[in-house]
């Protein structure tokens, strides 16, 4: 149905005088679906827009890469991990009240519901509005597919109550008991400018431009109500959340996330990831808790470590990802296995062993981290590492595992420089918005 559209010549449009008319990204989609006459389509469209039609029409085949913004849970948690991340933390501005917060969440939800479907941020969008006004949509995603974009919102502890105990929005009583600043961990070197925040947005997509477009537009929508506190770009997912995804590698070169909770493991998700209806507070049922840790890797130092030691630190083979106790990547580690010298095959200080549920009272979390490279530091070292993201039913799960990792041999090569925790409310029902239950 759409195959004829890309053939459309830009000629008729180019001959028309420039005017206020234009075809929005929305309009393109609508027409491609309807299979409307191509001649009609060209009216008012610039040559650039026509090129956009071609891209757009092809995308129809990839339409199943669009995830609905609405549902019982927010998208972006068990969704197959996309390749790129733009993560942004916001603080509410002074002089805002509960009505501002509510309106912001509504505006954000509306824009997110559109953008995740590959649409412009509003109906008039990037090119359909008045020539006398800046466009509603910044336009750099014109012609790009939805690219599996998911937008996930979360509420930080300070949204409910500031550090000074001020209840700015009348929601302190609804604050989940476990939602508080993470306790200090051994070896933390946290930068306050890369930590915390009243609100958070995780935008993941298979095209980095689509993820950046989402955060850029949501930041703009927030002007006057919330201000960007810090943000992080990520690439090369370091976890998998579905059976079909290959286990990716982190910047240490090791497979990461082999034992992650997968999207189809509903029992494990219910036990470890989703807040249950029986948990408190009631408005969080179907939600989760998001922990972000910016973990700098001392790349140059690591790269000088001999292979056998790298493997001993991780507890897995670098090539196959199999545990050092033997087998293949997905073989369960056997912590009782001994090497020739009679020492544990998987060293007691290895990362895999300390992070394993067996040594954490069965605690599991869903990981969704990304690699990052933020250029280099003033000494010419790569400013790189892992932007660790995890979702859990209770913040204590992360705390439990991170405390066990205090003796992790890997600690010598990493530094936790950023940190944050947010309550991720359940997904919005169609027609509603994220966090609505908080104001019900």
């Amino acid at each position, binding site marked *: 149905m759409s195959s004829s559209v890309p053939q459309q010549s830009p000629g008729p449009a180019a001959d028309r005088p420039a005017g206020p008319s234009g075809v929005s990204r929305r309009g393109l989609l609508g027409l491609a679906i309807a299979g409307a006459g191509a001649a009609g389509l060209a009216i*008012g469209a610039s040559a650039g827009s026509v090129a956009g039609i071609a891209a757009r029409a092809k995308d129809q085949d990839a339409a199943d890469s669009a995830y609905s913004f609405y549902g019982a849970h927010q998208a972006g948690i068990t969704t197959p991990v996309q390749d790129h991340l733009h993560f942004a933390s916001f603080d509410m501005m002074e002089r805002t009240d509960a009505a501002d917060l509510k309106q912001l969440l509504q505006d954000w939800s509306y824009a997110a519901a559109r953008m995740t479907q590959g649409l412009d941020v509003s109906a008039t969008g990037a090119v359909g509005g008045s020539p*006398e006004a800046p466009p509603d949509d910044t336009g750099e995603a014109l012609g790009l597919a939805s690219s599996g974009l998911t937008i996930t919102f979360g509420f930080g502890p300070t949204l409910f109550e500031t550090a000074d105990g001020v209840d700015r929005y009348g929601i302190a009583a609804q604050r989940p008991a476990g939602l508080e600043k993470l306790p200090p961990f051994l070896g933390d070197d946290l930068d306050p400018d890369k930590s915390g925040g009243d609100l958070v947005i995780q935008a993941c997509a298979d095209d980095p431009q689509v993820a950046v477009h989402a955060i850029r537009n949501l930041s703009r929508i927030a002007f006057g109500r919330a201000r960007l506190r810090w943000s992080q770009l990520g690439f090369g997912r370091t976890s998998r959340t579905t059976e079909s995804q290959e286990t990716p590698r982190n910047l240490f070169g090791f497979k990461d996330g082999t034992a992650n909770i997968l999207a189809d493991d509903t029992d494990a998700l219910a036990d470890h990831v989703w807040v249950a209806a029986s948990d408190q507070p009631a408005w969080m049922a179907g939600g989760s808790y998001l922990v972000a840790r910016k973990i700098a890797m001392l790349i140059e130092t690591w790269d000088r470590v001999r292979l056998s030691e790298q493997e001993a630190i991780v507890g897995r083979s670098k090539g196959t990802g199999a545990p050092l106790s033997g087998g293949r990547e997905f073989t369960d580690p056997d912590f009782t296995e001994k090497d020739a010298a009679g020492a544990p095959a998987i060293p007691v200080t290895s990362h895999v062993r300390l992070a394993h549920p067996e040594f954490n009272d069965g605690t599991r979390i869903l990981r969704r981290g990304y690699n990052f490279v933020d250029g280099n530091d003033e000494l010419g070292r790569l400013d790189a590492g892992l932007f660790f993201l995890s979702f859990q039913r209770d913040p204590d799960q992360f705390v439990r595992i991170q405390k066990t990792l205090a003796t992790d041999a890997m600690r010598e090569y990493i530094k936790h420089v950023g940190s944050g925790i947010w309550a991720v409310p359940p997904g919005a029902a169609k027609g509603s918005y994220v966090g609505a239950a908080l104001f019900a």
Partner: protein
Amino acid sequence: MTSHRLAGAVALGVVGTLALAGCVAKADAAATDDGLTVTSTADTCAVSSATAKSGTLAFEVTNSGSDVTEFYLLADDGLRIVGEAENIAPGASRTLTVTAQPGDYYTLCKPGMVGDGVGKAPFTVTGDAVAATGDDAQQKQQAVDLYAAFVKDQVGQLVPAVQAFVTAYESGDDTAAQAQFPQVRAYYERIEPVAEALGDLDPRIDYREVDAVAEGLDWTGFHRLEKDLWVPAQDALNSDGETPAWQDWAPSTPAERASYGDQLIADVQELYDYVHGGEFEKTLDAQGIAGISNGAIALLNEVATGKITGEEDWWSHTDLSDFAANVEGSKMAVSLVEDFASAQGDKGANLVKQIDTGYSDLETALAAYGSLSAGFVPYTALTEDDKRQLTDLINALAEPLSQLTSTILE
């Protein structure tokens, strides 16, 4: 410095209004057909009437479905959006107000925001073309005249202030000249977009050293005098952060001071002659009120790019005075045109409210650092947090302000 918003507005002004939109004042709105209701459900989009008389139309859209919905008035090509009401939650209502000229349109709802929409139906507007009424046009002309008067007044005050400032500078009374510097500049900063539109006049009056060097111009104007008055240390760097302050520069000799001073007086006189001549009025008239509101936006952008970084007054650190004057100038311009926005229904009224709040918050924050009359703290006294707060407040104001022109013209 480099933006020419006012000049650009001249070209755009001609095609500025939607072909379908005219400008009507409040009084006309009352006389037109504004009782239209729309009910949006999952698969219907019921409009109470398929016809209306030209003028201001108000569609009260009620969402009876379970999805967020949108309502569109489309042009006769079925594509171009003439007006839209967005983000209507289930059970909620929203009013779309448009000024419609006679012609054929379509109405359409889009529950769930995706796809073709539902209930696309022809909608006909009958009657006469809606023209700007005499009263309305008169009011707009009055706003333009008031803005012209404001500019003339500021430049009128700038001329003697510059003369006094230059006298102190040329005579070597640096203390007096330093005290006058931020005050003198305020008259210029309030009306900067006007001068910026004048080709090489703004470069001669207000270029920073790095910009003049980059463009191969002789460096003259306020900032040349500034560097003489606040002589940099031998190891200081220019505002580009790498060129030594003394590279190709030395404090002016008395003869050079006389030359640079007289040049500034002459350039300011040229500005005076321009704004008091027929050409200026003709330009303002051609731009109409859009030129005024676009000028207000340009001033805010000036603050957001140059002042907030402290690059403008690199040696004197009097950036907050420029900042305050830019804000005053933009606020003055907005005050002349915001009534026209208010007349555009709820949307316009809300916009004006947002803009007023934005100015008020920004002024409150600025007042913590001083005032134009009493002087401000040096820009170097501000912490990164202080600058961040000002940036946030500029963003909060500039975003609704950027919608002002189109709202007025709708």
